[in-house]
């Protein structure tokens, strides 16, 4: 046998699928061919490994957690299936009404009948059932922490269309869902929400925990209900928060008007007012009280974000998630819009986005920019990591004094002379500087200025020429007025 042996033939030989003569011939070839001998060795080792793989023990999995998630998914589907259909009484009424209308039209044709298509006298009169209201779809705009949809931690949250029957649950995080032009809800931490009904005619949200809702004015016939235990909150265009924990319900309205109902009565909560209904109290027994400034501020901060253009298909295909990673929680602003505490994922349109993070004093500092491309299935979201704030050092005051006292003001004056002549005064440069114990400057960045680049560069050169003495290491920011 002069030809090389195909590697899979060694596996056949090892498994005893070849007859003796063929096997002897292959062995004879391997004795003189180093390549085939090596291949035989490797194939046999792999075949031995198969047994080890076959006997690999099952890994340990958080069994109870998985069981709970399975149960949740299955029971949610089951509940959706057994949801009561519209009563037959309504159906009968609809059929009767439709029949009456058809009869009236046939018996008493209007004057404009000639304008319509000629109807055959023998044509059967069919009753067309009323069209079901158009289903709504919700899109996730912002996520922080862990969120489950229908009991599953979805990896494609931003392409997922939320429809009636969906159950959302949050752990420590929260999410914002937009479901129309200027209409969105934000589910708070450790809360769950079921989209019991989600169509153009009615939206019914069953909530346990905290939900912040912002709803565009409803048209006549549109209903928007939040069901919290045995209490119902109905709105017609407003922004409000419902918190339902245990059997206690709290409703706070930022603007607009909401009606809170239970079996015994109804209460209206107007703008900048709230009501707390204890577990053992009825709605009619409680009183509406004004919100404090701080409480209103909380509502403002909790406003769910909405995108200016609402087109579900275009957004699913054209927008993409941006992941902003921070160490610890940092308040974030993307393109100047405050989005709350990161880490988070937020829906953005493709393009370049500027991300700013708040420092310990609450001032937003530029954290960087990122180019976000259109989302592709299975692709990782664009990610920007916000660097942690440099820790405060004790030598800042000392170094700041040194800098202020030692700046060459004459040279600085030369830098801005031309613009001062043109009448532009009161300009500034904000720098970030790091100095070590020996006085050496680690970095010097101009982080903000209203000067042109040439003038700012000149100012930077002047500042860079300043020599610090020995002292404590410090990293600080300084605004230099010119």
């Amino acid at each position: 046998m002069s030809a090389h042996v195909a590697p899979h033939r060694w596996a056949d030989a090892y498994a005893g699928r070849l007859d003796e003569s063929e096997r002897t011939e292959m062995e004879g070839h391997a004795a003189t061919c180093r390549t085939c001998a090596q291949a035989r060795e490797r194939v046999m080792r792999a075949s031995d490994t198969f047994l080890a793989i076959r006997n690999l023990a099952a890994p340990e999995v958080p069994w109870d957690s998985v069981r709970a998630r399975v149960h949740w998914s299955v029971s949610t589907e089951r509940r959706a299936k057994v949801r009561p259909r519209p009563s037959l009484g309504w159906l009968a009424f609809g059929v009767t009404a439709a029949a009456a209308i058809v009869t009236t039209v046939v018996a008493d044709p209007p004057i404009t009948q000639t304008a319509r298509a000629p109807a055959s006298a023998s044509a059967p009169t069919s009753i067309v059932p009323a069209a079901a209201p158009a289903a709504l779809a919700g899109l996730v705009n912002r996520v922080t922490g862990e969120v489950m949809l229908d009991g599953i931690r979805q990896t494609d949250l931003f392409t997922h269309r939320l429809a009636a029957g969906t159950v959302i649950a949050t752990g420590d995080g929260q999410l914002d869902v937009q479901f129309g032009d200027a209409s969105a809800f934000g589910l708070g931490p450790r809360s769950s929400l079921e989209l019991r009904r989600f169509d153009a005619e009615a939206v019914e949200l069953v909530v346990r925990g905290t939900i912040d809702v912002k709803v565009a004015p409803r048209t006549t016939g549109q209903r928007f209900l939040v069901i919290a235990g045995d209490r119902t909150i109905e709105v017609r265009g407003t922004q409000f928060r419902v918190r339902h924990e245990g059997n206690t319900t709290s409703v706070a309205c930022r603007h607009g008007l909401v009606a809170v109902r239970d079996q015994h009565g109804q209460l209206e909560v107007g703008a900048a007012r709230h009501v707390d209904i204890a577990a053992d109290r009825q709605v009619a027994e409680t009183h509406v009280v004004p919100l404090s400034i701080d409480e209103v501020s909380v509502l403002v901060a909790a406003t769910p974000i909405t995108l200016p253009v609402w087109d579900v298909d275009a957004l699913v295909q054209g927008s993409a998630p941006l992941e902003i990673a921070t160490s610890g929680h940092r308040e974030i602003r993307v393109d100047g819009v405050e989005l709350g505490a990161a880490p988070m994922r937020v829906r953005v349109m493709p393009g370049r986005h500027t991300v700013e993070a708040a420092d310990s004093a609450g001032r937003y500092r530029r954290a960087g920019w990122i180019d976000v491309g259109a989302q592709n299935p299975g692709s990782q979201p664009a990610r920007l990591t916000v660097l942690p704030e440099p820790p405060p050092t004790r030598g800042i005051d000392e170094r700041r004094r040194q800098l202020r006292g030692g700046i060459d003001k004459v040279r600085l004056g030369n830098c801005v002379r031309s613009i001062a002549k043109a009448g532009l005064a009161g300009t500034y440069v904000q720098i970030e500087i790091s100095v070590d114990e020996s006085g050496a400057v680690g970095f010097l960045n101009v982080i903000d200025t209203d000067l042109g680049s040439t003038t700012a560069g000149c100012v930077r050169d002047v500042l860079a020429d300043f020599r610090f003495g020995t002292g404590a290491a410090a990293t600080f920011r300084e605004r230099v007025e010119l």
Partner: protein
Amino acid sequence: MLQRVKRDSGTVAALDPADEVELIERCRADDRRAHDEFYHRFRRQVAGNLFRVLGDRTDIDDLVQEVFVIAFRGLQRFRGDARLSTWIYRICVNVALGRIRTRKRRPNAIGVADLDSASIDPSLEERPETPDRSLERRQDQERVYRALDTLAPKKRIVLYLHEIEGLDLKEIAYLVDSNPVTVRTRLFYARREFYRVIAGDDAQQAVAEEDAS
């Protein structure tokens, strides 16, 4: 009727057919306890199957969940033309196949640590391994899974079921919802590709040159 039962590495005893039918009926009637029993009986088998097919434990809990959700949904349609354990194995194969396809689009390194942390079934170990032998075994397993990763998902699953699990064509055909002739063809090409990768570059080149001539 396919009678072969995939081994259960858990401690729960295998069900006899009558008990199996009863369990299915109770599950169909939405008996919560039956669901629990079903889960406890098959959970280790499911996790083991998924782990062995995929070779890593990333998101294994999500995959186990997916298998059980599909199983509970599908019990109403289960006709009983295979044992329950075989039917669940079929779901595992399909879920794993989906996972492999996703992973092909978004590659995920095969973790030596994954295989490292998964021990051999203790009941099958006669004596403790030496560290050298243990490392060698892990490297061998990693090499096999790397070679499997080079195959198309359909070929990979067929090769895995035949070469590693030792199932015959008819059983594989049931599991991958295909016919034995297709499986045989797929297996032929899968074996050729797989063992060429295993044999290494020299052998691949030698055989390729010979094929060309």
